[in-house]
């Protein structure tokens, strides 16, 4: 029999253990208390603040969702919970970035906001032929990516859908001509991601298109309700992947199988970047209901899936975002993947895959540093983008979230988790899913804006810098809409308005931007890599043909510089392989750089 005093002491010890989470939470909450007046001092504290300005900018867009086959009526809000997407483009080459936002209602219209250069925008989608693209017969938009596939100097657009993907040729910035059939695109793909990249560096942009639902599923005319994922984390019954090689005459050849991309995971996001320093763009695909995939580009001749070897493919989650950024100014890209976190139910946590020290090339290994760096918990996260929001020289992270916001006081989590854990015969059949009945599923969530301190920690400041909406955010893109050297954010919300968060940055922080144009390389310069050296630091960025969740940032590269006197130099590696050095580019201005012949 133990001594009573020891029993009492042990009882106190147990009480202390049980009290620990409460103390931990209280300490954590203390760091998040919004002191009175802190919003007005956000500029001084964090170096930037946002102001939602869509109305003032003349943007009045509200996303509408699809209504699929009545057999899905009981879970309609869940199955039609994606489709809001936004991409940034200077489609008429007037030097001002515009916005293309897609819609998902069966007869809804997409909008193309031309930047008038005075802080306002005007929707010209109908005028140029990019508005009326959604219908029950041809499917509804889930996103759009821009790239100059024929190198005529104007950005063309691929609109991907639950349905027929559509390619539109940009006729001099004045009109768009549909060229889907000539291009040889498939008749039906339930796609939720697409990116432009020149995987073989032949100077012509190729196209990756990722299927979500299987391509034999017509969501408006279901042959069977057995079209849901066969597993919540190991599903292999999703849509196929397409890799279209640009043949150069307006036609594309589908080469995915030949190139080694044969996945049927449920792709939700993709990004291409040279992750190993080979000069060729690798391909990263974030999959819902499964592991992410990383395809290493073997000299433009083949892709090799290397998820297991790199550790990225070890733990399956609900990947919904793919964005790359040189987070620690090391000249190497980290990859941000968003997932699901819900208190006490499912705490997947987002992933920030950082390359491990002393690994590179084919032996590169990644480590998930999201927890250690403070960017892990973002609710039911969707789109996220890296960008230097306060021009301090370090990439910050803007992430949106929220799945289905219906009743505030009732949620679907219990029924969702009930089916999610069941045998595949049960989970894969929509008929077995309990009805949503107007309940929310991870709704009304606060967004995340994480500020990078440059030494490995991010601080969440969304509420403090003015990002206060709780819409169901899907797609976010960053761009300098005012040519002011500040990254604004445009956010597409499911069944919600398109939001434009104008940024105001502390003026003592300097910046520089580069607008690249390829000559031997693809004219959009997608894949061009710029390494900027300043103040003893370096940061690398690449021109992207799509990243985040159904999004595309501005093609122009934006670098924040902090309080610096100048830039030492930039080194450009063009997709063609040509190297170019630009010495001491002037700060606080946009530079046009053309690939030397």
């Amino acid at each position, binding site marked *: 029999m*133990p001594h009573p005093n*020891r*029993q009492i002491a*042990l*009882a106190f*010890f*147990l009480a202390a*253990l*049980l009290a*620990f*989470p*409460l103390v*931990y*939470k209280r300490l954590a909450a203390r760091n998040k208390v919004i002191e009175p007046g802190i919003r007005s001092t956000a500029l001084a504290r964090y170096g930037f603040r946002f102001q939602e300005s869509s109305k003032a900018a003349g943007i009045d867009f509200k996303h509408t969702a699809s209504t699929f086959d009545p057999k899905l009526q009981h879970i309609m809000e869940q199955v039609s919970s994606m489709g809001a997407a936004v991409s940034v483009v200077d489609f008429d080459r007037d030097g001002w970035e515009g916005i293309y936002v897609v819609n998902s209602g069966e007869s809804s219209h997409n909008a193309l906001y031309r930047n008038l250069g005075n802080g306002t925008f005007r929707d010209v989608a109908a005028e140029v032929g990019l508005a009326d693209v959604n219908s029950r017969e041809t499917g509804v938009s889930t996103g759009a990516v821009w790239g100059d596939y024929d190198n005529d100097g104007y950005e063309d657009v691929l609109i991907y859908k639950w349905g027929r993907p559509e390619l539109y040729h940009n006729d001099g910035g004045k009109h768009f001509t549909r060229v889907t059939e000539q291009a040889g695109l498939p008749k039906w793909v339930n796609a939720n991601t697409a990116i432009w990249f020149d995987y073989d560096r032949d100077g012509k942009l190729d196209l990756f298109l990722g299927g979500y639902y299987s391509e034999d599923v017509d969501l408006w005319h279901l042959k069977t309700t057995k079209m849901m994922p*066969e*597993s*919540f*984390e*190991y599903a292999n019954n999703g849509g196929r992947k397409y890799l279209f090689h640009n043949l150069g005459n307006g036609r594309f050849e589908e080469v995915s199988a030949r190139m080694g991309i044969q996945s049927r995971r449920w792709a939700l996001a993709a990004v291409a970047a040279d992750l190993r320093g080979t000069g060729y763009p690798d391909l990263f695909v974030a999959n819902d209901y499964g*592991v992410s995939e990383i395809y290493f580009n073997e000299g433009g001749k083949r892709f090799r899936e290397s998820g297991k070897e790199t550790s990225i493919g*070890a*733990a*399956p989650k609900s990947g919904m975002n793919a964005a790359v950024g040189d987070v620690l100014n090391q000249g190497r890209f980290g990859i941000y993947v968003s997932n699901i*976190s*819900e*208190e*006490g*139910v*499912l*705490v*997947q*946590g987002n992933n920030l895959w950082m390359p491990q020290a002393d690994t590179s090339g084919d032996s590169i290994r990644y480590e998930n540093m*999201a*927890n250690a760096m403070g960017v*892990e*918990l973002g609710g039911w996260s969707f789109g996220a983008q890296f960008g230097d929001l306060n021009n301090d020289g370090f990439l910050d992270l803007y992430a949106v979230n929220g799945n289905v916001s219906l009743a505030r006081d009732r949620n679907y*989590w*219990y*029924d969702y*988790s*009930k*089916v*999610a*854990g*069941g*045998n*595949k015969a*049960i*989970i894969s*059949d929509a*008929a*077995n*899913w*309990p*009805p949503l009945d107007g309940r929310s599923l991870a709704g009304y969530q606060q967004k995340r804006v994480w500020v990078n301190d440059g030494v490995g920690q991010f601080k969440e400041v969304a509420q403090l810098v003015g990002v206060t909406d709780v819409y169901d955010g899907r797609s976010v893109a960053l761009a300098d809409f005012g040519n002011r050297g500040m990254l604004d954010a445009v956010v597409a919300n499911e069944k919600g308005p398109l939001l434009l968060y104008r940024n105001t940055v502390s003026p003592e922080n300097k910046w520089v931007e580069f607008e690249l144009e390829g000559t031997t390389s693809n004219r959009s310069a997608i894949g061009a890599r710029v390494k900027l050296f300043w103040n003893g630091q370096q940061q690398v960025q690449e021109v992207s043909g799509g990243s985040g969740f159904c999004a595309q940032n501005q093609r122009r590269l934006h670098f924040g510089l902090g309080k610096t006197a100048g830039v030492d130099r930039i080194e450009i590696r063009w997709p063609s392989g040509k190297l170019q050095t630009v010495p001491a580019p002037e700060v606080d201005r946009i530079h046009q750089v053309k690939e030397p012949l």
Partner: protein
Amino acid sequence: MSPPVATAAPGKPASPVARFFSAENRYLPPLFITLILLGGNLSFGLLESFSRTALAIGTAIVLELALGRMMYGRFPNLASAYITGISVGILLRSPEYWPYALCSAIAITSKYVIRWHGRHLWNPSNFSICAMLLLAPEYVATLSIQWGNTVWPMVIIWLLGAMIVYRVRRFHITATYVISFVVLAWLRSAITGHPFLAEVAPITGPMYQLFIFFMITDPKTTVTPKWGQYVVAVLVAVVEMILRLAHNVNAPFYALAMVGPAAMVVEIWQTKKNRPNPK
């Protein structure tokens, strides 16, 4: 989670192989659970990480040694602590490290503190996981979908689990609970109007097999008479059904945490009452 270990039975000497697979080998359950963990992680990557599981196991073992020495003056056998630690490592999900250490620490400490008449009332890992879910839901969840949705992991767990619980004569607890769950799933379906397959879905997933084989059968925290074990298994399923109707995501853990100790208290009280007074 605590797999059953039986006491030795008289008989002629058995072969080494038979002894290894006998119920008296208290290292067999930890070995099986380790195999399940390794198999699950190699095939499905079910662990948050090996380091987190190692932290849970290490905490449980260190604390067991310290508390055993402090309270009883001797170092206890570590099989039980290992099982507690590995259970926490499998069943708890958190991106943080500290919940694994804390959950194991609560489990082991509760064994020494929450006792009545020399018996601990809660299954230690069940108690600590419920405590974490109640006190730190922002940081933890339980294993749910991480083991896939196919049949074969279930088959493996059923084979290993059934072997263990059958040999220690506790298969009836598992069977009673499963039958009760299925019948009550039908009842829930009738009440909610949801498809029967949706209601029965949870028990078709591999995570649940760990619960029905290795948690509700824990001999230290189940009542002694066989009829009582039947009743307790049914009651756990009934309380779980009530919690499920209230949309509680972690219903099985809470149901066991409520019914198990209550049954133990009743049994201890009955035993005390029936014991002849020495005076």
